[in-house]
């Protein structure tokens, strides 16, 4: 069994190395076929580990005893391996078409080579079984994704995004590294610890370090600022992987740490819950206001991370306060949502990428009318929208449903103080859900419906079939996971967790057919295609439509304190008494709260201390000799003292 997994790892490595070494025209289609094959194999062979709860295998054992590197697979990692396999397949179908249309010759080889390697690094993070292996692969993942973000390096914005990302991801690694060292100090081994508990401050500190390291990587607010820069800047298949899989990998690490490493602790539960609520609500609020479609999707990833954090935090609380049934519901919701988020976010990023490429812009206000021009891509994006807006019976619904059920269940089982927490979280959670629907009505409605608002959008044409076959795989999985969710949960050994959505789906289908049939047979069938009423003007133009900013204006007004807009106006006058007005400008700026109050002050402080250090190093040989002399002196003194 373990050979087949090593073979899969080899396939990924091979498909990564081929385009980096061989510069033949369209070599990436070969590498994509290998990667897609690897994805299919990975999905198929991970399934048995998911279905049988006790199945566990060690795949590879490093020979080095001091730093043991071991990879293996168990139930939790099998689940995320399946997600990775499916995303690999979709990306393998999608990428060649995307690369064909990309500018720059050499860059395309690099991208097509780095994508499988990036996937491989994530696969290894998921399969790691010792903390040291985890750290190594975690850093590998960070570095590879940094280069992928840097692909379109000519643009100033991309370079900024990549550097920002590199800084943040290294801070994340530092935290994870510290956490792992503390675990090593606490337990004296590099193995994954099992249910550490006790009041040892080392243990709490190691949890906090690991949590913050993972939180930075998964874009938890307030450590999120890099995410909406870096995810959209990368080429679309990479954005799909970063939002769909890299966040899921970080969340896998979180689930592993919270449920496996440590014994549940109420304080940590509240911490996770608080960060979850913050990310969910603010993430979706920023997404709503975003005009860049890929940026909107990136912000919505933050909001989904928040939802998964809420589920995880609830698991901790329910476990500590003794409601195992509710705890199971919450964690099932969190895990299911992590998987389905990976699927539908990959789908949304890929279809949005096709649209951006076809229309030549990422701005929602310059799109419109794409659905008529790109029906397949638009239809698939619509399925993604239904899923992310948690419409039953699509997969996005299941996770949110389970978490809501556990919250309401918590109301009647817990003590009054916790009940208040539950009510607050429930309101914030449902606010997130409702704003997500609004956000995606905007994203779909203004991008795909009505009239095109720019020439580029008008000239958009449907992409070649593999570019929608890839997303179609994910759309199919997304719908299937939702419809058969009840059956899937019973198969995994958790029957009765969910109502039967298959029945609901069949009833919906049957009712639709009946309604359609009844109207078809009894109502008038006369139909005419005509022009939209233009309020008495001859024909309507796209300038009469609502824009994205207009669409979200009421929500911005309702939640004014959160958005904190600033209106700037300038005036130019004809005369010096400022009576005759000639021209002027007006603009509305969104205040960047976290940048102004958290990131920039921190950066300035670091800069100040760094400049203190730099004054030590002024290139003067005499001074360096002095340093050496002082060091030697101090060493001699210390050694003499201790001897």
């Amino acid at each position, binding site marked *: 069994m373990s050979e087949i997994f090593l073979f899969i790892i080899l396939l990924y490595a091979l498909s990564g190395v081929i385009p980096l070494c061989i510069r033949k025209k369209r070599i990436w289609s070969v590498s994509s076929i290998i990667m897609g094959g690897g994805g299919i194999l990975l999905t198929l062979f991970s399934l048995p580990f998911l279905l049988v709860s006790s199945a566990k295998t060690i795949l590879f054992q490093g020979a080095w005893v001091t730093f043991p590197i071991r990879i293996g697979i168990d139930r939790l990692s099998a689940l995320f391996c399946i997600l990775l396999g499916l995303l690999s397949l979709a990306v393998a179908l999608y990428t060649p078409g995307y690369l064909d249309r990309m500018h720059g010759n050499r860059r395309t080889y690099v991208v097509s080579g780095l994508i499988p390697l990036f996937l491989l690094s994530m696969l290894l993070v998921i399969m790691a079984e010792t903390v040291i292996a985890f750290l190594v692969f975690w850093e590998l993942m960070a570095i590879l994704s940094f280069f992928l973000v840097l692909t379109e390096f000519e643009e100033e914005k991309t370079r900024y995004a990549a550097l920002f990302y590199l800084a943040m991801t290294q801070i994340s690694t530092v935290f994870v590294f510290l956490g792992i060292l503390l675990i090593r100090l606490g337990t004296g081994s590099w193995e994954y610890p099992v249910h550490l508990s006790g009041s040892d401050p080392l243990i709490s500190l190691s949890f906090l370090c690991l949590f913050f390291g993972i939180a930075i990587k998964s874009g938890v607010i307030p450590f999120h600022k890099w995410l909406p820069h870096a995810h959209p800047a990368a080429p679309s298949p990479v954005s799909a992987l970063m939002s769909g899989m890299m966040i899921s990998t970080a969340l896998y690490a979180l689930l592993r740490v919270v449920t496996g490493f440590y014994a549940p602790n109420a304080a940590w539960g509240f911490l996770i819950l608080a960060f979850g609520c913050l990310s969910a609500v603010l993430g979706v609020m920023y997404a709503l206001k975003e005009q860049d479609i890929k940026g909107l999707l990136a912000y919505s990833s933050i909001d989904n991370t928040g939802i998964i954090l809420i589920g995880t935090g609830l698991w901790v609380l329910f476990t500590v306060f003794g409601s195992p049934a509710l705890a199971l519901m919450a964690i099932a919701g969190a895990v299911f949502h992590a998987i389905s988020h990976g699927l539908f976010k990959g789908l949304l990023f890929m279809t949005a990428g096709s649209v951006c490429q076809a229309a030549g812009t990422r701005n929602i206000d310059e799109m419109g009318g794409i659905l008529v021009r790109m029906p397949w891509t638009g239809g698939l994006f619509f399925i993604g929208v239904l899923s992310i807006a948690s419409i039953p019976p699509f997969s996005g619904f299941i996770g949110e449903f389970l978490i809501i059920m556990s919250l309401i269940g918590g109301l009647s089982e817990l003590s009054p103080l916790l009940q208040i927490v539950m009510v607050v979280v429930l309101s914030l959670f449902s606010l997130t859900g409702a704003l997500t629907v609004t956000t995606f009505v905007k994203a779909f409605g203004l991008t795909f419906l009505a009239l095109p608002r720019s020439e580029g959008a008008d000239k958009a044409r449907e992409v070649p079939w593999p570019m929608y076959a890839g997303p179609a795989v994910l759309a199919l999985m997304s719908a299937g996971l939702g419809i058969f969710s009840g059956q899937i949960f019973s198969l995994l050994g958790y029957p009765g967790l969910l*109502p039967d959505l298959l029945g609901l789906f069949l009833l919906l289908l049957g009712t639709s057919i009946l309604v359609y049939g009844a109207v078809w047979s009894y109502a008038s069938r006369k139909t005419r295609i005509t022009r939209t009423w233009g309020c008495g003007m001859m024909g309507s133009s796209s300038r009469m439509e609502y824009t994205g900013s*207009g669409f*979200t*204006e009421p929500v911005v007004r309702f939640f004014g304190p959160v958005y904190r807009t600033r209106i700037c106006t300038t005036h130019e006058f004809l005369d010096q008494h400022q009576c005759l007005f000639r021209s002027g400008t007006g603009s509305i700026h969104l205040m960047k709260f976290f940048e102004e109050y958290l990131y920039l002050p921190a950066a300035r402080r670091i800069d100040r201390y760094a400049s203190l250090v730099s004054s030590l190093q002024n290139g003067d040989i005499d001074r360096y000799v002095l340093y050496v002399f002082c060091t030697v002196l101090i060493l001699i003194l210390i050694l003499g003292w201790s001897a």
Partner: protein
Amino acid sequence: MIGESFIFAFLNVAFVLVISPFFMMVIKKVKARVQGRQGPHLLQGYYNLAKLFRKETLYSEYAGFISRIAPYAALSILLVAAVMVPIFWIPEQELVTANIIVFLYLLVTGRLLIALLGLDAASTFGGMGSSREMSLSAIIEPVTVVVFAALVYVTGSFSIHDIFRTATTMFPAYNPTVLLLSVPLFILIIVETGRVPVDNPETHLELTMVHEGMLLDTSGRNLALFELSHAVKQTLLMAILLNIILPAGIALEMSAGVLILGGVLFLLKGTVLCVIIGLFESAYAKMRFFQIPNLFMIAFFFSILTIFIEVML
């Protein structure tokens, strides 16, 4: 057993479809009378639907598949929701899940489709309507969830069938929490069906319209389907309110006499509630759009209060 469930589903849906336009007209009639007008005939709703179904349907040349499927989908979703909410008879077994959260999300689905429809035809009014509708829904949603959570908390079950069954055992010895819940449930009806003071169902004035704005470009059979689904939605929400605070006469077993009695009683209760809604609408003026969250906060406050009182008891 399963046969009984099918009979229930059929009867329930048919009953809802038949009475919904009547309830709409009762409200119209009451409002007209308060304004000193004669008002439409009580059967006018049926005539309107028949007329619309016979007329030609227009599609905008810019419109895509959303405009084609949304009318059918909107009605189908509400009919499925109608299977979940027993109007006059609670069968022993549920045909599909009657989970109240699933019911809520079905309503959200309908709203999403209508909002997209508003954008599909590229008209200014559609965009305006769907922007407003989605903004309002963003803030009413948490309120709705908390109201339903309070309902679940008081009755101890997620299934709408069981909630109604528990309500029949509580009746008529009133639980104060049930009475408290009726306030947010009433506000919910007002908001979800787009009535004064949130929305005005009678104007086509761009300053005020929300729901009508999105449907401005639909016609013929599509408009008829939307009007029907709007009426069905109102009846379902009314049924939730009525069957919780006044569950008298709701049938618990299948026998012709009890069922007919239940149906007639519901018709009476519903008509009274419609009169109240009509009077309520006449008593208020349309609220300024940005003031509407205040109304929602009242509903939110009452549902939180319900939960806390239930904790105390």
